[in-house]
């Protein structure tokens, strides 16, 4: 853009518009699709590094404004990198038979986890059929009976011999509910007590001795019985183990051969073999009774029975090479602690919560292991314990499953302590810049774990080449979303809107989401009009419709001015009163509107009262701006005299907060007008901040501010005199709506750039500002001359006031 002359109205040629773009095609259908994201080379470089490097901790934070393509670019770059990577390993949890609380984690080649699970299911099914058959076989029954008979006969023989001995000695052994009784007998019956008493003492002594002897032998035999039973049980158990071993070995042979090259799997299968042999009775449980139901139980799915859960293989992650390739990319939209690191589920068993290793569920870290995990930074930071869990996992290089209740010691029920699983993945956080800077400042782990940042630009310099790239981007968006192609004038209008969204006539916005919204709405209007391409008018309609939808508050403000509820003059002249401009941003609505600023002065002790600040309605930046005015006045006028001014400045009819310094130029002009007692032309509004030397500096929202005053003036009828004074540094930011540009083109409205406060005051008062002459004084009739004269007069008056004799004694 050529150098801009200050103090002169801008010509439409000085402003950006769609006519600036000569694109050289009819519609975007002629253009090659754009696979990349224009203007994001820096961010894409970081993304590619994160995707391709194998070093640990090169995790990535993708920062930028929403809508700049962070998610789509991240996804696409990672997809390209993931495709070149191998499928990661499968992961399973299996039972640790000697300590079921600590399930074992195992790693298998891709696709083999499911194979292992199915193989073990088949083993269980086979054994559920085979083991009952083994234990019902004649061979087993015979061998078992032989053992039992051996011990029974040994006992029977001993008891038989004792019974015979007792009989020979005139005794009987009787079985009673209390045990075995030994007593003298008479024939086949017990000798009655009275007859016993009548026996000669020698006979009684003989019988008593015999009774004691038989009793002692009986005690020995009975005490030996448990030992015999124990030995018998041991032999039967050995027989059972021997029989079960044959069945289990036969059933497991194929599985062991199939996974022979995986030491961890064969180790587990061997542990399973030992457990199956030890617990062969699990395969003998019959489904009889009421649970069996009316129909025969299916025989092919024994592995589903609760007693066989201990042999299950819990597949946490499986990648079938037949249907999948490359490393996984997982986006976890709800990164709760459980969704991130997995969870241990519970079931209710007679009122108690119980669990086992088959109830371990994988989290996003498990699924993304060996690949990429994309998370929203805000979400993971706001989910309790999730951020901490992510950092722990990345630091330790393994995923450990625990619950929030466990972490806070809130759970007292039985739980598990599964083996951690090794973790190797790249985490990509997508979030706002603010979060990135906060994390970098406040979390010492962040910088170590997230070494890379992909900073997505909001804007791209406007050049002929970038305009062409942007045209291709718009064409690609239209094609991808199934919209009509965009005609060249439509693209030009979109480019203008892109400049407008970036608030800079020299920069295209990279907020693709906002542009996409406009394009989609324009496509709707083009469709309604029966057009085959989206044209400039459709874009204009979409933009205007969006403005209108969001314009209720703007219209209310303008209506209040039009009905003189808010007092804004757009013609005439007044001392100490000026139209400043402010921007209101509520939700998606952003608009400018004029606000009257007024200033009053009198002699004082050098105080400039910012009424907004006194009323605690002014923000710190606004207060800073007003303080700068004091500096300007003090340094610019009568520097050798004490500042003897009392002045007040206020935003009239402003009842909310005021922040920012973009009205400081207007406030200074109002003050100078009040001091010089010169009226200000109310046809103008002024925006811009000012420094202590009187230079007018750039502000934000210049387009909305100009349009806000234009709308106020247009509602009352444009006079051709009305206009806005803006900082010259803001001219490059002007991308005004066509209605304003048309008025400027027709000489009905003016936008005048200024570089200094002197330029502004001259334009607004119609008098030269005045520069100090050789004598060091401002011309007497200039604005500055009048201001300095007034301040000098205040100082003189103050001095005189200070010299007044003290009359207090007289009054006394």
């Amino acid at each position, binding site marked *: 853009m050529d150098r801009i002359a200050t103090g002169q109205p801008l010509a439409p040629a000085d402003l950006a518009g769609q006519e600036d773009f000569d694109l050289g095609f009819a519609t975007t259908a002629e253009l090659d699709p754009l696979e990349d994201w224009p203007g994001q080379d820096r961010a894409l470089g970081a993304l590619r590094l994160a995707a391709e490097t194998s070093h640990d901790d090169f995790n990535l934070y993708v920062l930028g404004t929403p809508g700049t393509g962070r998610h789509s670019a991240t996804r696409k770059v990672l997809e390209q990198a993931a495709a070149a990577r191998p499928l990661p390993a499968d992961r399973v949890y299996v039972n640790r038979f000697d300590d079921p609380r600590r399930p074992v984690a195992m790693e298998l080649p891709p696709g083999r986890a499911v194979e292992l699970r199915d193989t073990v299911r088949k083993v269980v099914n086979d054994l559920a059929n085979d083991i009952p058959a083994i234990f019902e076989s004649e061979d087993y029954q015979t061998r078992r009976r032989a053992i039992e008979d051996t011990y029974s006969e040994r006992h029977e023989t001993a008891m038989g011999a004792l019974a015979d001995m007792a009989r020979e000695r005139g005794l009987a052994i009787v079985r009673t509910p*209390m045990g075995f009784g030994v*007593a003298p007998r008479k024939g086949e019956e017990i000798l009655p007590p009275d007859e016993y008493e009548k026996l000669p003492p020698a006979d009684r002594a003989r019988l008593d001795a015999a009774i004691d002897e038989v009793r002692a032998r009986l005690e020995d035999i009975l005490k030996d019985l448990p030992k015999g039973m124990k030995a018998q049980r041991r032999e039967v158990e050995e027989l059972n183990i021997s029989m079960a071993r044959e069945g289990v070995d036969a059933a497991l042979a194929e599985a062991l051969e199939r996974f022979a090259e995986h030491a961890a799997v064969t180790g587990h299968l061997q542990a399973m073999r030992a457990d199956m042999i030890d617990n062969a009775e699990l395969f003998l449980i019959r489904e009889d009774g009421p649970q069996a139901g009316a129909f025969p139980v299916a025989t092919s799915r024994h592995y589903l029975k609760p007693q066989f859960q201990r042999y299950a293989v819990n597949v946490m992650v499986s990648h079938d090479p037949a249907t999948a390739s490359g490393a996984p990319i997982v986006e976890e939209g709800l990164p709760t602690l459980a969704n991130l690191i997995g969870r241990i589920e519970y079931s209710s068993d007679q009122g108690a919560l119980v669990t086992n290793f088959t109830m371990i569920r994988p989290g996003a870290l498990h699924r993304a292991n060996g690949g990429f995990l994309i998370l929203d930074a805000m979400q993971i930071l706001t989910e309790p314990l999730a951020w901490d869990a992510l950092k722990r996992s990345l630091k330790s290089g393994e995923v450990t499953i625990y619950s929030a209740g466990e972490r806070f010691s809130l759970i007292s029920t039985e739980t598990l302590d599964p083996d951690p699983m090794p973790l190797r993945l790249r985490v990509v956080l997508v979030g706002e810049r603010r979060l990135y800077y906060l994390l970098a400042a406040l979390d010492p782990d962040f910088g170590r774990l997230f070494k890379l940042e992909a900073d997505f630009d909001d804007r791209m310099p406007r050049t002929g080449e970038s305009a062409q790239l942007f045209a291709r981007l718009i064409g690609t968006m239209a094609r991808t979303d199934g919209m009509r192609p965009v005609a060249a004038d439509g693209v030009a209008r979109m480019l203008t809107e892109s400049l407008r969204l970036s608030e800079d006539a020299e920069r295209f916005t990279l907020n693709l989401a906002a542009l996409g919204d406009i394009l989609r709405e324009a496509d709707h209007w083009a469709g309604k009009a029966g057009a085959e391409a989206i044209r400039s008018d459709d874009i204009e309609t979409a933009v205007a419709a969006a403005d209108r939808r969001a314009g209720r508050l703007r219209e209310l403000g303008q209506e209040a001015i039009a009905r003189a509820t808010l007092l804004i003059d757009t013609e005439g002249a007044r001392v100490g009163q000026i139209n400043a401009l402010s921007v209101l941003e509520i939700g998606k609505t952003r608009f400018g509107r004029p606000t009257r600023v007024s200033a009053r002065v009198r002699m004082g002790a050098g105080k400039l009262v910012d009424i907004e600040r006194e009323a605690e309605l002014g923000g710190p930046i606004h207060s800073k701006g007003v303080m700068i005015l004091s500096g300007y006045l003090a340094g610019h006028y009568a520097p050798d005299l004490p500042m003897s001014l009392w002045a007040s400045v206020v935003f009239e009819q402003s009842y909310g907060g005021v922040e920012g310094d973009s009205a400081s130029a207007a406030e200074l002009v109002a003050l100078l007008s009040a001091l010089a007692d010169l009226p200000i032309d109310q046809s103008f509004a002024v925006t811009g901040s000012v420094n202590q030397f009187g230079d007018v500096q750039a502000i934000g929202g210049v387009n909305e501010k100009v349009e806000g005053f234009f709308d106020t003036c247009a509602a009352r009828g444009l006079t051709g005199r009305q206009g806005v004074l803006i900082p010259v540094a803001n001219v490059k930011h002007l991308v005004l709506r066509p209605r304003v540009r048309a008025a400027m083109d027709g000489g009905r409205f003016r936008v005048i750039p200024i570089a200094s406060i002197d330029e502004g005051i001259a334009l607004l008062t119609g008098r030269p500002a005045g520069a100090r002459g050789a004598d060091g004084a401002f011309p007497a009739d200039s604005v500055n001359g009048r201001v300095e004269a007034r301040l000098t007069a205040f100082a003189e008056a103050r001095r005189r006031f200070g010299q007044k004799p003290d009359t207090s004694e007289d009054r006394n």
Partner: protein
Amino acid sequence: MTPADSTRRVILTATCFAEAEAMLALAEGLAAEAGAMLQGVLVEDADSVALAVAGAARIVDPAGRPVAGLDPARMGAAYARDAARFERMLAEAATRTALTWGFRRARGRLAGALTGLAAPGDLLVLPAGLLRSPLREIVLAAGADPDLAPLAAAAAARIRRPLRQLAAPTVAGAPWTGLGPGSVLFSHVEAHNLAALLGATRCIHVLRA
């Protein structure tokens, strides 16, 4: 005529709960096979009662420990406990196999008590000898009621043990010598010979009344 038609009751007779428990499966199977009522009888044996008052008698409990302070009251309480357990066990078994059942207590000598209880067509299951062992064989005495043969065969199949034939029994003779506590002898005996039979054998008897 089938065993079901000819057998009215299976009477499981014991002098203590341990004996009844050892014979229950056999009696339950017989009752189910014959479609008969399962009747339990706990006989308070006269010898046991006499034992409680005999000063010279000694009792050793099943674990081999001497029992001190023996008296009729304790013996009576022990019988009451065994009777309750016997009845409960019988009820559970009958429910399991959908049998009708009954239970009663009797006093006197086992043989004498049975003579008063048994009616024609009843099948008596009763122990002889001190010891009870796991069942090892089914023995069918020659000359036994023909109805007993199929019941004996079914019992042998049920417990998967052999069935053998025994020469004609004579109480004074020696054919019992091959029988032990694990044997189940299916035979027929006259009431007046029952006490002698029980005194001469150490096995489980299944007798047609």
